């Protein structure tokens, strides 16, 4: 098996199917590690990682930090609130100042799509995208696909639906790239106002009918309604949205086959899915969270070994 084809993880679009498979194989090993009495390995003990978050995050940040600590890396955390960013410092100055303190890798979340590409051109450290605006969120897509593969086996020709706010979702775009690279068929489903124009250009099916989509798919990824990114009104009310696009238990029970349900979190309970569905046996939401740590350990491990090669 070869090494990763890229020095940075900016998006799923830039990596190959072989990269994804390598990450998954390594994840299997790290999943073993995080399920044993001592959940820590010394691999990255000489690596320092900065987590730079220009946007709010709970689980991604905790997940990355845990992954880093379980690899024995040194970790520094930075969030834009309460920092010099508020004093007008530019992105590249902020990051260069952090790198001047001898940091090897940067995990960054930023509201501007492409912020990571910009950084990758200008700085030397490995960069992991932890979400850039409405563009990509590669580690989320990897953990989603990994969790699906655990449940469904090989994803070739499996039918996966991505439901909800596709327009504002970086998870959707990364998921589409990742699932397609693994051979799955992808359908997006949501109200026309929340589907980007020309989304069919990505080779996905488009539907506005939730019931029909659920009957079609093997698994459905229910995306969060991103109210914080919605400046205009995209639907009349949350209640109306959930009536049309919320998954309920009777709906799931009425299907001919058992489908897998995912949600990248945080859940708006009662909007995208009801509590009964979120807590049902068919939901793999907590598996996704567990796998998140293992996936991020694998990504950081593989990129750290790449680091030395590049020198």
């Amino acid at each position: 098996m070869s090494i990763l084809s890229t020095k940075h993880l900016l998006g799923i679009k830039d990596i190959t199917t072989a990269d994804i498979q390598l990450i998954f194989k390594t994840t299997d090993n790290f999943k073993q590690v995080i399920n044993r009495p001592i959940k820590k390995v010394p691999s990255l003990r000489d690596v320092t990682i900065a987590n730079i978050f220009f946007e709010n995050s709970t689980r991604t940040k905790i997940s990355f930090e845990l992954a880093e600590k379980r690899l024995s890396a040194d970790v520094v955390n930075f969030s834009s609130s309460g920092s010099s960013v508020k004093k007008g410092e530019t992105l590249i100055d902020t990051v260069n100042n952090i790198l001047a303190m001898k940091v090897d890798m940067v995990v960054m979340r930023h509201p501007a799509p492409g912020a990571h590409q910009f950084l990758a051109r200008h700085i030397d450290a490995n960069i992991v995208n932890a979400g850039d605006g409405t563009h990509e969120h590669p580690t989320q897509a990897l953990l989603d696909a990994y969790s699906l593969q655990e449940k469904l086996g090989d994803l070739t020709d499996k039918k996966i639906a991505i439901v909800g706010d596709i327009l504002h979702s970086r998870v959707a775009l990364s998921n589409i790239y990742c699932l397609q690279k693994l051979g799955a068929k992808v359908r997006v489903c949501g109200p026309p106002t929340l589907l980007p124009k020309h989304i069919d250009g990505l080779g996905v099916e488009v539907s506005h009918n939730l019931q029909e989509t659920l009957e079609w798919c093997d698994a459905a990824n229910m995306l969060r309604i991103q109210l914080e990114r919605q400046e205009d009104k995209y639907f009349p009310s949350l209640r109306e949205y959930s009536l049309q696009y919320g998954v309920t238990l009777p709906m799931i029970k009425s299907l001919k086959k058992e489908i897998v349900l995912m949600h990248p979190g945080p859940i708006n309970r009662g909007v995208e899915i009801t509590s009964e569905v979120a807590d049902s046996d068919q939901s793999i939401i907590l598996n996704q969270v567990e796998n998140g740590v293992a996936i991020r350990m694998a990504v950081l491990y593989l990129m750290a070994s790449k680091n030395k090669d590049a020198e």
Partner: protein
Amino acid sequence: MKRIILEYEQVELILTRICHQLVEDHGYFENTAILALQPKGTPLGKALVKKLDTLFGIKATYGELDTTFHRDDFRRSDKLLIPNEVNIDFEIEKKRIILVDDVLYTGRSIRAALDAVNDYGRPASIDLVTLINRKYKREVPIQPDYVGEHIDSRTDDYVKVEWADDQCQVWIITDNDK
């Protein structure tokens, strides 16, 4: 040049001898487990388990340990270190552990293994079985407790342990045709 140093029959004799030595020291394996190192130590580990059963009717506890995350050449070697599966479904704590690997050379993988074992608990003791002990190139102070064959070889030689259907041959390959 490629030269055979251990034939099938010789390896069989060696395995029988090591099994006797193990039973001498560990009795009927009431509190002892065999832990083979991934990936190259596992055929030897399995062969020992099988032999212990044939010779003494001992059903030895067997596990497989991977040391990749504990190696000291991560980020220092050109190769990507790909981890292997760990299979340990017993408690290491307070057990007597017999580590099994095919060739002992620099000793660094055993050093990593000693660290890796500790992640699963504190064993009562750790012994080391190796089929081939290549002398003169140890980089850390580690010595085997049970040895198949001691070999004096040059640094650029390569010792190849080849398993086919539970049978094993050992070759020494000099630098020209690795």
